[in-house]
């Protein structure tokens, strides 16, 4: 692929945290304490925690948000070259001496990239905690739910704050655990328990990549610290860097549901909707993008690794969009969309310094508008007796005006309606893609059109068209505690684009990811924007023709084209996994169990039968094996004594 001239790769070279920055640890400690108190306390004394557990759980991320905000302001006040600080908490692992030493610290890094993530995680996280107070009100285990949410927030913060890959991995697996617990929160349902396990196991395949990258980091650099690796990366050789980058990409594919490790995300919608909003839309699933942007000092040195990122991203952004077109389950349609939007972020990240900042920009705006829409979907479900099938919705805008209006803001943002946040962020990625490689750029453009289609379809089936719900369903607006977070997120969905004003976001992230010398796009930027808007308009128009102008049947028609069937089946992602991996593994496992019993054990049993026969004979004459055992020990000791004598003589 075509590469632009790389600028100097910025190094990670933090200074020790002082002043307000010495509070860094507290950002993680608060939600971690919340999780500990809620999970242990809730098990010991369930009653009081039912009364105020959710309040405690909500206060913790809010506290972290306030600290993050203060630190962010402090960071803005510093010189650009002085915006990286590190806080050493303690030595986590320390083994070996001299040149073979491995010391991994619990070190927290705070720089412009982390600062943005902290605000996203704690800010959107706090809103979703507030929303959950209402959403989970009737659940008996609400305190436990908040405990898990707090655990998630703490782990996610660890992920983006660690100064080394091992600490990042701690957070990485921590969010995986929280995701597992929350997807399976209603684990009396087989589907939920199964989805939770699937998510964890598929993520573990990705984790193999990240673990191996950690091993490679140690063998190559003797350290897993970003500071050390970014300083030494240039000397390590291209092949090592390519391997490193591909391993990280494998990890990112798992966490961020990128092809080929995408299939868990749709099942993950089994979790309560606030979980889908927080974990499976706004934060955790974007961790793969963070990983790649954070590791820019590695990807900058390997064209092959970056090309792989771009290919995976492009496939996924189309894959997710196509799935989103065919889903009738509102959450799964949104999940397909999430997959696709993360594809855009990955694409940005794969395009190098020109795209890193825009990847993060889109990650943030997506965090706003997708959390907004997921919570909106939750609000709809709340009013529709937890039905998720859009074919049973219709005309809900009249009954849930706040949900409708806030959802509409998210909708306009995601399709890229001019002026809304998603317009700015997606447009930038498409522009960079077109500049770097025409084919990839056109794919990204096509994805934008499909996004326009499936989001409009979702919007129409849910809020417009005619009502199709059962007589016993009485849609009603959700309580304030749920709608206020929606309004805040809607406002952010509209205004998030302000981060691009005066190229603030690219300048802000430049100390971390570098800044591209301006490359000329094939067309003037304004023309590209116009084309994007046109393509989106075509998608929207198609949805109006195909969905808005026709009757929506209550049950999905079955006489549909192959394409629709494939999209409904998640493009056969599960079928491929089952046939290629799950079934063969299951056969292998049961085959090995038989092999173990018959061949391996059989070999010993055969030999043992002879000895056992002897044992039986002994048992007949005496009182069992004890004696035979005693005899053999005695025999053994006698042998020793004889041997000793023999040598001495």
């Amino acid at each position, binding site marked *: 692929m075509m590469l632009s001239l790389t600028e100097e790769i910025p190094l990670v070279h933090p200074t020790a945290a002082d002043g307000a920055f010495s509070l860094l640890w507290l950002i993680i400690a608060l939600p971690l304490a919340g999780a500990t108190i809620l999970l242990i306390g809730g098990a010991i004394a369930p009653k009081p925690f039912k009364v105020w557990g959710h309040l405690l759980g909500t206060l913790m991320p809010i506290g972290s948000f306030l600290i993050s905000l203060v630190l962010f302001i402090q960071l803005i006040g510093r010189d650009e070259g002085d915006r990286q600080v590190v806080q050493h908490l303690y030595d986590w692992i*320390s083994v070996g001496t001299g*040149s073979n030493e491995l010391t991994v610290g619990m070190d927290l890094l705070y720089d412009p990239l982390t600062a943005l993530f902290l605000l996203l995680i704690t800010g959107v996280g706090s809103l979703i905690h507030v929303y959950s107070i209402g959403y989970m009100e009737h659940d008996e285990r609400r305190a436990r739910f908040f405990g898990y949410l707090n655990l998630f927030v703490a782990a996610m913060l660890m992920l983006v704050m660690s100064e080394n890959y091992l600490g990042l991995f701690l957070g990485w697996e921590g969010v995986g655990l929280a995701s597992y617990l929350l997807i399976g929160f209603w*684990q009396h349902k087989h589907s939920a328990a199964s989805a939770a396990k699937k998510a964890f196991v598929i993520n573990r395949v990705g984790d193999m990549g990240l673990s191996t990258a950690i091993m490679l980091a140690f063998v190559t650099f003797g350290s897993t610290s970003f500071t050390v690796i970014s300083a030494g990366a240039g000397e390590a050789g291209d092949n090592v860097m390519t391997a490193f980058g591909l391993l990280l990409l494998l990890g990112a594919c798992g966490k961020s549901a990128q092809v080929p490790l995408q299939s868990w995300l749709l099942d993950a919608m089994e979790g309560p909707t606030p979980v889908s909003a927080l974990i499976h839309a706004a934060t955790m699933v974007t961790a793969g993008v963070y990983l790649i942007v954070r590791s820019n000092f590695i990807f900058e040195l390997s064209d092959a690794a970056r090309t792989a990122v771009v290919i995976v991203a492009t496939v996924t952004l189309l894959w997710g969009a196509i799935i989103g077109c065919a889903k009738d389950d509102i959450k799964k349609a949104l999940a397909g969309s999430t997959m696709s939007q993360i594809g855009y972020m990955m694409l940005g990240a794969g395009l190098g310094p020109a795209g890193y900042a825009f990847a993060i920009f889109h990650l943030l705006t997506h965090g706003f508008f997708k959390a907004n829409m997921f919570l909106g979907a939750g609000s709809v479900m709340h009013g529709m007796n937890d039905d998720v099938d859009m074919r049973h919705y219709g005309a809900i805008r009249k009954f849930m005006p706040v949900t409708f209006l806030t959802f509409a803001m998210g909708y306009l943002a995601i399709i890229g309606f001019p002026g809304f946040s998603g317009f700015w962020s997606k447009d930038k990625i498409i522009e960079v893609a077109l500049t770097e490689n025409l084919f990839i750029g056109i794919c990204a453009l096509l994805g934008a059109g499909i996004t326009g289609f499936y989001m409009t379809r979702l919007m129409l089936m849910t809020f417009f068209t005619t009502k199709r719900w059962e007589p016993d369903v009485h849609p009603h607006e959700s309580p304030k505690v749920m709608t206020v977070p929606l309004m805040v997120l809607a406002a952010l969905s509209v205004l998030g684009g302000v981060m691009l004003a005066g190229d603030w976001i690219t300048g802000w992230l430049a100390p971390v990811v570098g800044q591209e010398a301006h490359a000329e796009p094939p067309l003037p930027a304004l023309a590209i924007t116009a084309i994007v808007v046109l393509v989106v308009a075509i998608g929207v128009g198609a949805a109006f023709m195909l969905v808005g102008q026709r009757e929506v049947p209550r049950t999905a028609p079955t006489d549909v084209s192959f394409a629709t069937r494939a999209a409904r089946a998640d493009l056969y992602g599960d079928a491929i996994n089952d046939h290629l991996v799950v079934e063969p593994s299951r056969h292998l496992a049961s085959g090995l169990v038989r092999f173990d019993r018959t061949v391996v054990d059989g070999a010993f049993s055969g030999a*043992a039968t002879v000895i056992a026969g002897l044992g039986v004979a002994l048992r007949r004459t005496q009182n069992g094996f004890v004696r035979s055992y005693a005899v053999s020990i005695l025999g053994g000791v006698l042998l020793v004594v004889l041997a*000793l004598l023999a040598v001495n003589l």
Partner: protein
Amino acid sequence: MNDFPILTLVLLVPLVGAAVVGLMPTREGVDDRPKQVGLIFSVLTLIIGVVIAAAYKVGDGGMQLTETHDWVPAFGVHYALGLDGLGLLMVLLTVALVPLVLLAAWTDADGADAKRFVAWTLALEALSLTVFAATDVFLFYVVFEATLIPAYFLVGGFGRKNRSAAALKFLMFQLGGGLVLLGSVIGLYVVSAQQGSPSYLYSDLQALDISTDAGRWLFAGFFIAFAIKAPLFPVHTWLADTTEQATPPTSVLLVYILDKIGTFGMLRFCLGLFPEASEWATPLVIVLALISIVYGAFVAIGQDDILRLIGLTSLSHFGFITLGIFVFTAQGATGSILYMVNHGIATAALFFAAGFLIKRRGTTLISQMGGLEKVTPVLAGLFLVAGLATLGLPGLSQFVSEILVLIAAFDYAWYVGAIAVSGIVLAAVYVLWAYQRMMTGPNPAGLQAELDADAQGEGVRDLTRRELVVLAPLTAALVLFGFYPAPLLDVSNPTVYSLLDNAGVADDGPDVPVGTHAEEGDH
């Protein structure tokens, strides 16, 4: 304090305890006194263990708290005890575990049975402590074999229907290993006697000049015995049968303490006495270790009996431990020592929790459980934590050891690391799939009927206070050592350095060294 034979004391206390409990008169009806007396002795042992830890000088890699007395001077046999970091950790684990085993088994047996269980457990504790503290190879051999006596009675005396057959199988394998070991022990004497006055003292043997051929033969004897003990593929088949048939507390004693003697022996004797032969055998051992990791995990996935499953996961984990030992780096060896500790804690918690579960459901078959998460959330939660530790989740202790072993394996050869790392996916499958089938989903018909019938409050309940006392400290240790493994590392590091130093291994540094090591980085 300096000359006080505290190591002798720590192994005498449980031995006396075993005798006292064994000689107590059997009373009719419910009689908790043997258990209480046994518990007191085990706690007393634990306290002495804590004193030993306090007296131990962290940072010194050699033998400490040594006691040496002639036993059979003609053959150079001594009663010699001493602890290095590795021995200390094993001793501490043993003394900490036995009280929990006694508590966990509190309601397993009554009357004369209970008395026998307590007495044999204490006897096993005393002998295992001697194994870990022995610094005379002959003494080691004698107690190594002697541990089989209480172990045999524990497996054969308590448990399920086919326990006698399982106990016999266990014994046959161990005896086989013991005989091979005996050959090497005799051989060591021969070599020692040829080079002056014979001595079985570990330090004397380390100073011996063993010829390459002799060293390899002797090594083989030690290694085979330890590979059976640990166990490694293909000599592992006794393990699943034993854990399936024995009671869970017995399995804890076996897997947690006895099996560790195998990997303890590999470090102490294979590496310590035969470094050249150990390196010579490395390719074969690594292949066996890798097979154990992958094969053990696959066979575990295919099990329906939870006790067999947990037993077989240990095969996979012993593969990791052995792998770490034989790659000859500080990370590998330290990782293995930590792994021995952490695997012990995690597996003990798993076995105990599974035992409590089986008590409640009356079956060991995973396919017949289900739905327990709602009824017994605390039990399910602690089981899950132990399971997550087993699958190497960061933040829980086993992760630290696993990543160290993996790093060392990758350092040895990238493909060894790449094969071993597949274990982390397979572990996730066997832990979470079992959890899913045992704990989640709707209540199975049988459980629901029981719950309905026992609406008054009998029936399936969450953990009792006694059971919580068993599981809580183990769970706390998993979290503590996951975030702060320094206490374990500080103790094991010096021992590892002196071990590797003795083996003459020079670690190669990273490819791109940083800072002060910049000049010495090339392979």
